[in-house]
Every structure is written in structure tokens, then in C-alpha cells.
């Protein structure tokens, strides 16, 4: 939830909003990252850290925020099986972080949101997709740039229908990202006149996916939607093995699994013609090159744009608020994200701000316009297609921009 919601929601768990400490700007904008270094989502860590690092590099090269370089502390969010995140937040709060970027997992974010927002610090996730955060009690301090599943699911569903798939099978990772997206795709596809003949929510940690794929195989749908993260490579293997190759069935993927180095190792043509949706208007290639300068070993790029945008937005909001205190930053975040002169990088935007212009930051992950709940209100989804080399073309087939709410 965002500023507008606070009054009605806070009764649920938090002390009254007034208990959030008053602005305490100390002059230096301090960012904390709470991103996975270990645990089941650790593979998402490197691109997210790289996104923040890249933004920070650019911000500090452009002169920092409020005349001072932005400070940053990295911590591990682990996964829900350990209590690392809570410890990390303790440390960041002790180090006087003004905003915390993280966590990757919705569940982890949920477990620390009270603590972070209770301390009057901005909680900004680049990757949370759970719809709970729209209504959560957060004193107006929670924001996210995460890919809005609603829009992506809609675009993907529409694409599937438009491609003429009257029977569709969905293989979705069983977590809030996977099921959220799958729900949306399923709804759109059904509304559009196609039939979802089988939907399998699988446990991404499962020892193997043959049974899950066998369920799809039993219905032999024309279109197969793969929603998940890197375990999709295993699902692909299984699809090929069980005789459901991309050459005979149309496969669709999502941002979580379109970029995966394992695809390249697969025989030529395995993914030929497969389509995938990725939020964001920019050509991913350029941005990826810049990220590689920060971390040359980077292979996966999931949520790097969102992380990058998160850091930029916080910096801009601090500039706009002329304060680095979390509460002040939060108050300005929506403002810098929409309604004003469009600008695309921190330098460009901050120059406008200093000139007294109202800005509208458009990020790599999309136009990023926050609604009153702190969720992105508008997004752009690119539709990409794989070629014979199992890589998708850098240029999207099509971009669709839309209101997330509808």
C-alpha cells in the first residue's frame, strides 16, 4: 500500500503511522541492498546487485545526491528458509540506511516490511510480484518496480490467442510470481476464446519435471506457456524428450525465463520460433552491455533493469525532496515517476530537477509511474522471439504499453 492507503490499512499490524520517526536527513543518502546472495533465489542476486551498482556508479559520476556521493551497504536476503533477511535489515538499520532495495522474494519482503517501514525507511523491491503488497500496511514507504504480472499476463495471453492457439497448457512455477502470472494468462486466454486444457503448478525445487510435463503431454495442447525462472531449462529438456518440441507446439515464455545461458547449449533450433514477453521498452542489449561492465561474469539479467530503476528513482526522489530521510524520499517517489518532463537517466533527470522542472523518470524496466499504492501503474511489455541459435532477437517484435489496472 502507499500513502493513500495507510489510514485504512494500518490497523492491521502496525503501530499508528505517526510512530514513524520524523525526517532525520543526515545529508548522505544511504542505500542498503537486501538481495539474495545465498539460498534458492541466489541466482537472481548477481543481476540485481549489478543493476543497483550500475545506477550508483552513474549517480555518483553525475555528482551524487544532495552534493554527496551515495553510500551503499550490501546485505544478503537469503531465502525464507533462514532468517538472514531479518539480520541483514538489523544491520542496515544500524548503519542508518535511508532506503533498502529488496528483497527478491515476496515472502522475504513480507517478513521484513514491518521492520523496515517501522523504522521510517523506504522499502523498495525490484522483484516482488505478489499482489499482497498493493494493500499491505506500509506507512506509504513500500514501492516496487517489479514487472507487473497483470499487464504481462494480459499481453502474453492475448498473444497466445492471437496466434490461434485454441488449446493451451500452462506450466507455472509454484510461487507468487509463477501463479500470479499464470492466473492472468489463464484468464486472458479463456476470455479470448481459447481453452486452457491443462495447468500445472510445479514445485521449482522438485527433483524432476517429467510428471509435470507428462500431464501437459496427455492433453497435447497447441500452445504451451512456460512460466518460471531458470528451472525452465529443465522443463524444456523434458518437453523435448516427451515429444512436445517447439517445432510442433508453440511455446511461450516470460521475463523470468527468457534469458538463460543454458538454452545456448541446447541443440540448434530447440527454441526456434518461441516467443517471450519482457517488461521494458528499451532494447535489452545495450543495457546488458553496460551491466557487464559492472559485473563481467553476469549471465542472467532478470530484474537488473528493475533494480537499476529503483536506485535511480530513490536518488531522484531524494534530490527532489532535498532530504535523504526515508519518509521524505517516499513522499517524492511518485512525483518523480510521472507527470512532467520525461527523462531517461539520472543525469538527465537530476539536471532537470535542479533547473526546477517537474520530471517523469522513464526507466529501463518501463515507464515506471507509481500509483497511490506504490506499484507501477503503467508498463511497457516487449514481445521477443527466439531464432535458430536459441537466442531471442534483441529487437522486440512489438511493444505494448498499457495501464496495469486495465
Amino acid at each position: 500500500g502507499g500513502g493513500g492507503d495507510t489510514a485504512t490499512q494500518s490497523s492491521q499490524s502496525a503501530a499508528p503511522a505517526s510512530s514513524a520517526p520524523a525526517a532525520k536527513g543526515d545529508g548522505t543518502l544511504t542505500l542498503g541492498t537486501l538481495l539474495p546472495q545465498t539460498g534458492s533465489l541466489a541466482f537472481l542476486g548477481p543481476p540485481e546487485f549489478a543493476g543497483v551498482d550500475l545506477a550508483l556508479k552513474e549517480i555518483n559520476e553525475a555528482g551524487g545526491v544532495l552534493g554527496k556521493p551515495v553510500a551503499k551497504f550490501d546485505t544478503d536476503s537469503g531465502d525464507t528458509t533462514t532468517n538472514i533477511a531479518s539480520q541483514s535489515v538489523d544491520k542496515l538499520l544500524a548503519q542508518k540506511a535511508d532506503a533498502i532495495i529488496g528483497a527478491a522474494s515476496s515472502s522475504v519482503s513480507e517478513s521484513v516490511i514491518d521492520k523496515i517501514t517501522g523504522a521510517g525507511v523506504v522499502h523498495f523491491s525490484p522483484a516482488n510480484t505478489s499482489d499482497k503488497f498493493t494493500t499491505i500496511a506500509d506507512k506509504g514507504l513500500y514501492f516496487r518496480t517489479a514487472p507487473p504480472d497483470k499487464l504481462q499476463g494480459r499481453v502474453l495471453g492475448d498473444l497466445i490467442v492471437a496466434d490461434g492457439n485454441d488449446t493451451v497448457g500452462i506450466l507455472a512455477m509454484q510461487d507468487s510470481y509463477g501463479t500470479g502470472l499464470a492466473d492472468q494468462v489463464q484468464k486472458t486466454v479463456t476470455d479470448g476464446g481459447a481453452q486452457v486444457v491443462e495447468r500445472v503448478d510445479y514445485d521449482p525445487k522438485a527433483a524432476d519435471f517429467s510428471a509435470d510435463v507428462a500431464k501437459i503431454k496427455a492433453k497435447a495442447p497447441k500452445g504451451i506457456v512456460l512460466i518460471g525462472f531458470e528451472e525452465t531449462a529443465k522443463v524444456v529438456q523434458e518437453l523435448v524428450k516427451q515429444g512436445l518440441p517447439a517445432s510442433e507446439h508453440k511455446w511461450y515464455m516470460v521475463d523470468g525465463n527468457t534469458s538463460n545461458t543454458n538454452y545456448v547449449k541446447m541443440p540448434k533450433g530447440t527454441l526456434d520460433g518461441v516467443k517471450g514477453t519482457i517488461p521494458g521498452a528499451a532494447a535489452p542489449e545495450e543495457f546488458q552491455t553496460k551491466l557487464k561492465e559492472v559485473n563481467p561474469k553476469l549471465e542472467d539479467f532478470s530484474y537488473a533493469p528493475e533494480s537499476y530503476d529503483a536506485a535511480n528513482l530513490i536518488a531522484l526522489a531524494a534530490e527532489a525532496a532535498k532530504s535523504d530521510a526515508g519518509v521524505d524520499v517516499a513522499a517524492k517517489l511518485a512525483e518523480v515517476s510521472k507527470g512532467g518532463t520525461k527523462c531517461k537517466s539520472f543525469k538527465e533527470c537530476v539536471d532537470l530537477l535542479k533547473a526546477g522542472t517537474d520530471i517523469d523518470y522513464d526507466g529501463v524496466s518501463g515507464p515506471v509511474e507509481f500509483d497511490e499504492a506504490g506499484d507501477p501503474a503503467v508498463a511497457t511489455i516487449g514481445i521477443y522471439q527466439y531464432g535458430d541459435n536459441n537466442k531471442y532477437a534483441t529487437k522486440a517484435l512489438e511493444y505494448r504499453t498499457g495501464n496495469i489496472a486495465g
Partner: protein
Amino acid sequence: MDWLTILTTTVHAAIGWETVVYGLAAIGVNIHFGYTGLLNFGQSAFMAVAGYGLAVTVTVMNMPFWVGILVGLAAAVVLALLLGIPTLQLRADYLAIVTIAAAEIVRLVFRSVYFKDIFGGSDGQRGFNGDFYAMNPYPTGHYGIGPFGFDERTMWLLTVGWIVVLLSCLVVYLLMKSPWGRVLKAIREDEDAVRALGKNVFAYKMQSLLLGGIIGCFGGFFYGLYNGAVQPDVFGTEMTFFAYTIVILGGAARVFGPVVGAMIFWVLFVFVGNLLAELVSNGYIPFMTTIQVGPIRYVLVGLGFILLLVIRPQGIFGDKREIAIDAR
């Protein structure tokens, strides 16, 4: 180097909510394993059903907090009975696996899309701790000395938490020096001998399972109350493993073993992690990036446990003579 942060976070960890939660889980495990010899590797399930019992009652069924607590307790009792009836006749090592399996079943069911309406799927449930904090007698503010201290919410949770921990320790102390405790310890050594002396071994094992489960289930409550949320994956096997590590670190079958073990555990965890992070970010370890801090921290923590147990296999309070007796 930000020594102050390292110090404060470490001190906080020693008496913080993690120590309460894991300490309670470990006290339960200590009753099961340390005193009765039941290798219950499903402790996390007790915490899970308790946490979920509270959460679902309050959020889904819109019942008051106290009903939630009762439901959580009842759930733990039911779980103990369900788990105990088939498994308590098994040999120790079989019991271990069966209880892990049971705990995984519980977790997977809580996690499933199929039951999402009730348990909330992989995101779990939140928003059930309002009533608890509404009872908070501490006015808003910071309680502590200088940088050491907690806000009023944490203070309230810790106050209740430590009272429960100490009460549990007292109960364990009283029970274990009584004839009841003697029967448990005897069961640990040789069930058949105890049977031959006319004790109903099954009943005692069940009582032990219940008691340890109920104490553990308070850990589940506090977890949920502190975080304001319960999620299925929190209650995975890892939590049980950690509880066991804590019991062994502190010394099995020792009243305060689990509490001190939990302190050591979290101090080690936090200290190593934060020290390492500081060292890396200050450039003392140039070949490491901050992303690598996470795994290396675990490497060091793992190493720390190993060393502690190699140096003191009986744990902090344990009796060397006791483990020298070959129980095999």
C-alpha cells in the same frame, strides 16, 4: 570498519527474537531428543501448524487473537498425536526420517496452490499480530543503553518471549529431575528395559512429543508475531536442523543448553556475516565481491559449528563422561 554496528547487531542477536524463536524450538527438540532420545526431525512442523493456526484463525476466519493461539496449540497437539501414533514405535533413525517427511508434507500442503485460499500459498498469511501489539504496555520509544536497545514493539515481543523461554526452562528443570523425567531418560537408553519395568513407554514418548511440540509451537507463534507473517518455506527442514545444532552446541539434555546454544548460534551467524561484510566493503579482502559475502559467510559459519563441536563435542554444558559412554 564499523565496529559499533557489528557489536550492536551481535548483541541484539544474542537476546533478540531469533534466539527466542530458535531457543524455544530447541528446548522442544531437547525434550524430544536430548531427554527422550526421540529423533524428531519434524520440529518445524510444530512451529508451522502453530503459526498457521494463529494466522488462519485470525485472518481467514476473522476470529480473535486468543482463539488463534488456542487453535495453534490445538493444532500442535493434533499434529503430535497424528505424528506420534504411527511413528513412536519406530527405531530412532527411522523416526528421524519419518518426521522429516511429515514436516515436509505439512510444508508442502501449506504451500500448495490447491489450498491457497486457506493457507495463502507460497506467500503465506499475514496481518494477525495487531491484537498482540495492541496489548503492548510499553509506550513508543527506544529501550536500552545507547545504541543497544529495541523499540517498543520488539521490547514487548522479547519480554513475552523471554518469559515463555524461562518458563519452559523451569518446566523442563522441574520435570527432568522428577521421576517422570527419569522415565524419559531411561527410554532414551533402552525402551525394552523400561517396558520390562512396567512403564508405558508409548504414553511417555507421546507426552514427551506433546510437551516438546507445544514448547516448539510457541517458537512458531513468536516467529509469526514478530514478522507479522507466516510463510511455508520458513518452516523447512533447515529450521529443524538449526534447532538440533543449537541443542548440541548447548549440550543435549541440559536445561539451559538450548538457550545458550541459540545465543551462540545467532551470535556466530551475525558476527561472522557482518564482520565479513565490513571487511569486504572496506577493501580488506580485495579478491571478494560483496555478492560473495553471502556464501562465504555460510562457509565460515559451517566451519564455526564444526570447530565448536570438534573442540567440545558434548556442547557447552555437556558432560564429557556422558558422551564417552558408548550408547551404540
